[in-house]
């Protein structure tokens, strides 16, 4: 029985982009361009039976496969982004065939051209700020006088001092997060601040400290030195905080497009 193929779209690039890097996609398939006018979709052929709705439901629970797919998808998007402006498509944006991909390009060509203009000569930078984990409060003398005649009162006083110390730390970390955000926002043409994600240490994506800033910035390539300088300066100004700056990334947080289901 002949295998039916579907078209998986990774990204949209200008049709005039320099030749596509030699790279394979999620199904180890070579990727190619489907072109319409000035824009082109970076596309690969995958087995249609692997990406229909039922297969998807099954695969959403298959963490190993999802990880492989996400990594392969990102690898293709990232390679495109290295050589030309690229509008990333959401993982698993799949069309029945190349004709449908061309139809999509025709239908959305204005939106896509605009998205390409938005990302051209710009990149996404991720910035996260963590405040350190608390010290063990049991060996924290907290400068509260211990009164041996009133151990219960001393205990409550110590707890109160600890709580207010925690409160101060939390507030100053929140203020530092706002400052970091303001500084990167000045460098950026767009910013996306999302709620901090906190997972316990030792779990996937877990960390020791508490995340107080989780943001992405779309920044012009001509300001890369400024990004590095800002990261350095903020790190020096807030030695107690952990500042994590990552990038340059394709502009996932700003122009990602896709239906997410077979179309």
């Amino acid at each position, binding site marked *: 029985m002949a295998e039916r193929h579907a078209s998986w779209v990774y990204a949209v690039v200008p049709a005039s982009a320099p030749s596509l890097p030699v790279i394979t996609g999620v199904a180890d398939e070579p990727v190619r361009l489907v072109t319409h006018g000035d824009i082109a979709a970076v596309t690969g052929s995958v087995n249609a039976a692997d990406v229909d709705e039922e297969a998807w439901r099954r695969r959403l629970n298959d963490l190993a496969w999802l990880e492989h797919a996400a990594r392969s998808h990102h690898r293709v998007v990232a390679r495109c982004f290295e050589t030309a402006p690229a509008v990333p498509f959401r993982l698993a944006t799949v069309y029945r065939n190349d004709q449908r991909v061309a139809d999509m390009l025709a239908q959305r060509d204005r939106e896509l051209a605009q998205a390409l203009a938005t990302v051209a000569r710009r990149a996404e930078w991720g910035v996260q700020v963590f405040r350190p984990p*608390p010290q063990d409060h049991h060996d924290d003398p907290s400068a509260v006088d211990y009164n041996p005649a*009133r151990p219960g009162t001393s*205990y409550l006083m110590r707890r109160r001092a600890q709580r207010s110390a925690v409160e101060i730390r939390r507030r100053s970390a929140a203020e530092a997060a706002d400052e970091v955000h303001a500084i990167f926002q000045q460098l950026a043409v767009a910013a996306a601040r999302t709620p901090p994600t906190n997972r316990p240490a030792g779990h996937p994506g877990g960390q020791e400290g508490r995340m107080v800033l989780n943001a992405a910035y779309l920044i012009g390539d001509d300001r890369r030195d400024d990004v590095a300088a800002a990261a350095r300066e903020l790190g020096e100004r807030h030695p107690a905080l952990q500042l994590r700056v990552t990038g340059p990334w394709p502009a996932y947080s700003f122009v990602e497009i896709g239906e997410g289901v077979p179309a």
Partner: protein
Amino acid sequence: MTGARIEFEPERPERGLTALVLTVVELLRQLMERQALRRMEHGDLSDQQVEDLGSTLMALEEQMEKLREHFGLTEEDLNLDLGPLGSLLPRD
């Protein structure tokens, strides 16, 4: 993908249950402590009442520590991750 979970290990089912019970007790203890601090700050407790409350809460904390040690649980084990709501007990 998931946070701290109470695991019901098949060979030691009582461990998960113990963690759950201790979590609830610890939550109540912390709520009482916060309430005591609030009342102390408002000045509506006599010195003796502050002393009694403090001693009770301190004893409860010591008990809790012993129980945790006995069952080999850490403070973090007693903290359920409620996803977007954060954690059940304040992390710090």
